[in-house]
């Protein structure tokens, strides 16, 4: 019952929270640039407007793929907040990402195709860190189950700081923040027109936007999982950690220029190998 409640809460609240997070993001970014910035609810205004516009598409199957992407993304988050296997969540997430790729390449448009090729490279770049993060949880807690990880007594972050660094690092890619916003970029940046979202207009873009909100809430949940444990105070700590990580991402976004994909791949894999790898070795030693 409890699980159902959480899943329902995620499905209903995630877009609201995700939209608000994005609103805060834009506001803070504006303040960092000494601007007033848009209203907090701007992301919602945008999505409502997009939904109101005339339905357009380059390829009719694009909407189909995007809808599948959205549902898969919701499923990923629902599985996570429902407390199932964390590795499985990420596998479903990668399937969702594959559908986003399909939604873009199906149009055979030059900019969208370049964007989606880069998206694939991004997927390849972040996947090891994600898998290793799951291994980290498994080694510390002895289970992949999100619920069991969340109610255990251990403070995961203390034992897996290396995994956390690698995960925050790839979060920049996942959240499409500069310097890693290669496949598509957020509003104030521009890259290869709009990259993977180039051919998405009106409703299709709204679907993409909403999926992104779901995704961000899911990812922030994973960040929170690093500190959540049996103590009720840990929830507050998790919220603070999430806020700090989000702020860090905004800061990185506003202070760095976009990289080439080669540099992205190299740097990310090196960071993954060094921080997550060393952490993994240390944990394995304790484990054995």
């Amino acid at each position: 019952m409890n699980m159902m409640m959480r899943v329902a809460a995620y499905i209903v609240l995630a877009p609201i929270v995700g939209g608000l997070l994005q609103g805060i993001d834009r506001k803070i970014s504006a303040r960092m640039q000494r601007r007033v910035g848009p209203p907090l609810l701007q992301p919602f205004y945008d999505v409502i407007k997009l939904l109101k516009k005339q339905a357009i598409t380059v390829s009719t199957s694009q909407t189909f793929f995007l809808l599948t992407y959205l549902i898969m993304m919701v499923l990923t988050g629902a599985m996570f907040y429902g407390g199932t296997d964390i590795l499985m969540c990420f596998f479903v997430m990668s399937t969702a990402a594959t559908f986003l790729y399909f939604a873009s390449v199906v149009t055979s448009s030059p900019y969208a195709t370049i964007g989606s090729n880069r998206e694939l490279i991004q997927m390849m770049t972040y996947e090891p860190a994600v898998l290793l993060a799951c291994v980290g949880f498994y080694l510390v807690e002895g289970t992949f189950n999100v619920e069991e990880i969340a109610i255990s007594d251990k403070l995961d972050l203390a034992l897996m700081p290396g995994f956390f660094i690698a995960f925050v690092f790839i979060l920049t890619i996942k959240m499409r923040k500069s310097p890693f916003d290669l496949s598509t970029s957020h509003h104030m940046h521009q890259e290869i027109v709009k990259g993977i979202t180039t051919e998405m207009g009106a409703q299709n873009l709204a679907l993409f936007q909403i999926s992104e909100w779901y995704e961000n809430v899911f990812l922030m949940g994973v960040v929170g999982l690093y500190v959540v444990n049996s103590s009720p105070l840990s929830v507050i700590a998790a919220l603070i950690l999430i806020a700090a990580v989000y702020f860090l991402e905004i800061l990185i976004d506003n202070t760095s220029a976009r990289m080439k994909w080669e540099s992205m791949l190299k740097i990310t894999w090196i960071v993954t190998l060094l921080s997550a790898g060393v952490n993994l070795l240390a944990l394995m030693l304790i484990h054995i």
Partner: protein
Amino acid sequence: MTGLPLIPFLILFPFCVGATLFCIQNMEVRKVIAYVSSSLIILADFILLFAWLAMGARPVTMYFETAFVDRVMLAAELGLMVLVVFLCFKYRKYWISLLSIIPTCMILWIELYVPKAEGGGKIYLDHLSILMCLIVGIIGGLIIVYGAGYMDGYHQHRSDVPDRRRYFFMLLFFFLGAMFGFVLSESLLWIDFFWECTSICSFLLIGYTREPEAINNSFRALWMNLFGGLCLAIGIWQFVTHTGSVSLHELIAVGVAGRAVAVIPVVLIAVAALTKSAQLPFSTWLIGAMVAPTPSSALLHSATMVKAGIYILFRLAPAMQGTLTGMMISLIGGFTFIITSIMAIAQSDGKKVLAFSTISNLGLMVACAGMGRMETIWAGVFLMIFHAISKSLLFQDVGATENSLHSRDIEDMHGLLYILPKLAIFMFIGIAGMFLAPFGMLIAKWSAFKASVDSGNVMMVFFIAFGSATTSLYWTKWMGKLISQSHIREKKFEDITKRNEMISLSIHAALMILLCLLFPLLSRVYVNPLLTEMFGAAHDVLPQSVLYVLVLIIIIVLAVPVISYNYVKNYRTNRKLSYMNGINEGDNRFFIDSFGDPKRLWLSNYYFPGRIGQRKLMVPGQLFAMTILIVMMIMIIGGVVA
């Protein structure tokens, strides 16, 4: 138990059919015989399964008195040696003949002069060998059905190649017979004989077209596999001279007991298996095998040949667990897994991508076997099952596509869904089965991952984490190509895929989806008993609850597209031109260039052949693997001798 007549039938029948096919001139009659006998083989497979289940599904050893058969086999082995020597001299590859002469002489010597414990069983039936029989029989049989149609199209589109179809089908059937023999044998001498049979069959199949490239590649395959055969023969000779036994299970038992006599035979047989499974540094023969017509590559890659190596490694797994040999095998397997999956990214030839992905997936299976734990074998068995089906499906499909499209380049498959819809859908299913969550291969990979964490194998954890990332890159970009809107709409391609090819493809696709859904059942009913036989105890690596959740997710993943398709179907929308800076000319296929003329838009995937291509990585990879192999072999053998 004295015998089950089905077993000689399974082994001999394909040989008889092959010989008959060679003698029949009429093509239609030949096809009918091929269909009927493939169906009979599949049927016999099932009867064997049920007969054995009825016997209580326990491991059985049979056929104890086989002196006559042994002599026949010896004669056949000499015959094979003569054939190889003849061909080597004909094509001036003199030194390769040594690789055939030496092991044959060794086997001859063992057979005639080394005292052996008499009366050991020659055939062994258990879960693993029955599973292998099913894979060989079902997939192999379907490939032959497919091949009957495919070869017509092949000779239509490759009119430069002499038509030797009789010979081709003969070899395919011989291959199946040899594989059955290989997986059912208990006697190491029998295993060696069938091993040589598969090596030579594959050599002849690769050289089918008799073009210079084909001949070159076939000899490369020959020497690598014969080298494996040499290792195997030396291993057997070592074991026989020390213990007087030629039983595979004796060897495993001695190995599990940790006695030193088993170390050298096990390591040599494992190295032999590496050559069969085309692991680094022996990978190049499998890539070269691509020159052969598709049915033979499908057979080599999915059901037979490479799986023979995996089979023998699974057999040896308990003996390798925790030893230096196991470490060597898992290291080489894991390394092959990641390095070939990187090389696969750089390939645009569809068959080459499949070849590299075969080697890469085999690497994972080899690594699973090398770790030798119950959990890793669980993962390995599932990898083997799903890989066999998906790969066979993909090979057949790429072959059929090539016949219709006159190209097997992935770049030319842009928009295949609109050109050859049926083949594209099958290809889509096959690729999805290879890597996409939550289908079979991924679940197996997942459990391999978990098992390597459990066994504390840090190296493997890294290999799998990075290797699965690179694996999904090349598959996803291929899938993307299939569904992109076509650049070419003016040229029409006719789907010349024959009905029998379609039948085989449909059965494969259905089988794959079915197995994905029956995953938990398969695990409980078949794979766990298999592991119990091997390790004495077994449990699911992923808890059954997770497996059922997975099945649920598979259903959701299959249902979501259907639901969203139905939702979108009636969705009214306005078609717009795609964005090309406003210089789009008409219908997304042309844009206006700087001279004001329309120019065709051509989109390509990323490959980076200069950076991660075969030329760049193959030699370093081989050198690295060879170093591991030599250094560790010295350590292992030196450790025993000293």
